[in-house]
């Protein structure tokens, strides 16, 4: 039998053929932490006297979760991270640069790389055929110091996607549909490998959305073979030389093969309080929203802002709705300014915040009041996620979010999209 994409990347990295189930020690190409997990990683390294990085040039300390800091305790955490970066030569990505996973895609990820991050959505970089996975602070701390980590090579579920997405439907709807099907623990410890004609035709910003949410079904990685889309994306980031083709063998051994036809797919939402509580938007239509959040490592990219701007252009966000927009990186923010999306969104009544995680983790920039409802383009709707256990969070696409901001109630985006811009 041939190798899955996960087995192939790890085999190439350790220099021998490895198969699902094996425990391996593997070199780490990129290691990252963020401001919620980095301080503990630094403290762990200090505790054992190993304040160093094996590869400082590809070890990045991101400050994105509470940025700018809303509290003195977090400001002090940020100081700790800046000092560690200065002492060890590690890279620092400070306030305003953007969400770690978006910046890893822009600046570090490439086919065949092994990436570990002290953030569960590190799997986002799997869209570029990198073996990228989230771990805790101590695992990543040791990975930073030693330049290696241990893995159990995962079994793989092949997600074979066919059909053309209907207008108003995008990768977010597909991944929500899949998580609803698999369940929040349906792929625990597995690799998800997305393939098929729909994925081959899918642009990078949507591939990143798919890979980003693999962890919401419990998966360790979400992988997509590299191809011309990958090459063009790397070239657009000035890293074309890092491209190489990488795909599973045709006779790879998959634990499960799941076929999905998207031609009849509808806009979907995850309802409170689990990501696998997935329903078509039309079944939830009419529910009042107090807040809409367009951003995050899932859906804060230029194309996501473009869709939101196209829906809100020349209109007003409904009275009583806070529409919070957070570009995922400085580069995206600048491009969105240049293309007029930011002006459109602000004119429509949106609040645009500095690149970063925004309200996603519940620390600042959009904490819910008791009983309030938010529709987010982010990836988690757990109880308490937006800083208040008495809040209610729905997850959906940028189109669904913008449509609901416009009407003030959960709205199927197809009802407000012009046919011309629906796709």
């Amino acid at each position, binding site marked *: 039998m041939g190798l899955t994409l996960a087995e192939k990347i790890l085999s190439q990295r350790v220099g021998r053929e490895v198969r699902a189930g094996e425990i391996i020690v593997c070199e780490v190409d990129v290691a990252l932490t963020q401001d919620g997990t980095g301080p503990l990683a630094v403290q762990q390294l200090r*505790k054992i006297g190993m304040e160093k990085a094996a590869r400082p040039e590809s070890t990045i300390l991101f400050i994105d979760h509470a940025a700018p800091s809303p509290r003195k*305790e977090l400001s002090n955490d940020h100081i700790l991270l800046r000092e560690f970066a200065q002492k060890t030569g590690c890279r620092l990505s400070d306030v305003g640069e953007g969400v770690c996973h978006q910046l890893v895609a822009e600046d570090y990820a490439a086919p065949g790389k092994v990436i570990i991050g002290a953030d569960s959505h590190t799997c986002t970089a799997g869209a570029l055929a990198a073996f990228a996975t989230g*771990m805790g602070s101590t695992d990543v701390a040791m990975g930073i110091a030693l330049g290696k980590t241990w893995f159990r090579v995962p079994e793989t579920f092949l997600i074979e996607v066919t059909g053309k997405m209907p207008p108003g439907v995008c990768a977010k709807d597909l991944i929500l549909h899949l998580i609803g099907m698999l369940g929040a*623990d349906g792929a*625990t410890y597995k690799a998800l490998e997305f393939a098929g004609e729909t994925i081959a035709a899918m642009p990078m910003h949507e591939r990143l959305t798919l890979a980003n949410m693999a962890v919401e079904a419990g998966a360790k990685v979400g992988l997509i073979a590299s191809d011309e889309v990958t090459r063009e994306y790397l070239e657009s980031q000035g890293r074309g030389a890092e491209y190489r083709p990488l795909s599973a063998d045709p006779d790879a051994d998959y634990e499960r093969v799941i076929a999905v036809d998207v031609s009849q797919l509808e806009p979907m939402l995850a309802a409170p309080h689990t990501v696998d509580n997935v329903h078509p938007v039309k079944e939830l239509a009419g529910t009042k929203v107090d807040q809409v959040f367009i951003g995050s490592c899932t859906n804060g990219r230029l194309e996501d802002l473009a869709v939101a701007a196209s829906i809100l252009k020349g209109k007003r966000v409904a009275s009583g709705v806070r529409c919070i927009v957070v570009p995922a990186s400085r580069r995206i923010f600048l491009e969105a300014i240049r293309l007029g999306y930011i002006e459109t969104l602000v004119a429509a009544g949106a609040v645009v915040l500095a690149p970063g995680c925004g309200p996603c983790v519940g620390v600042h920039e959009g904490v819910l009041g008791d009983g309030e409802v938010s529709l987010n383009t982010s990836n988690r709707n*757990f109880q308490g996620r937006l800083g*208040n256990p008495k809040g209610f969070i729905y997850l959906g696409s940028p189109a669904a979010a913008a449509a609901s901001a416009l009407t003030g109630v959960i709205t199927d985006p197809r009802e407000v999209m012009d046919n011309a811009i629906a796709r």
Partner: protein
Amino acid sequence: MRLQGKAWKFGDNISTDHIAPGRLFHLRSNLPELAKHVLEDADPEFASKVQPGDFVVAGNNFGLGSSREHAPTIIKMAGVSAVLAKSFARIFFRNAINVGLPVLICDTDKISAGDELEVDLSSGKIYNKTQDIVLQAPPLPDVMIRLLADGGLAAHVAKHGDLKID
């Protein structure tokens, strides 16, 4: 190693946001303070009433969500001797071993809130004294037994100067 204590029951899909929520993000570098709020959003009374040695007993997919290692760390700091669940989320499971919090997979439907439990970590046997039944947890992978024996991952690396798992 034998552990003894009372069962605190929780349901399925207890997330790291239930265990260590984002609204307490600023306490992550003050773990003793954060531990006073452990699991607060799943059971507001738990943190103040849990006794040293007690067990957290949950359903499927315990610890899903964020990679925050603070979650298993503050469960341990609250005095909990082990977490028993039908299944665990991947990152939480690995983090728990790294910080030295025992995690056991078993049929937790056979444990009720308040049951007195005795757990033998070396054999994975869970004796429910209240109901007089024995449950068996599958053994941990060798690599994790090794890390636990060294006192967690950081202690392992401090001891060997490297990853020595084979």
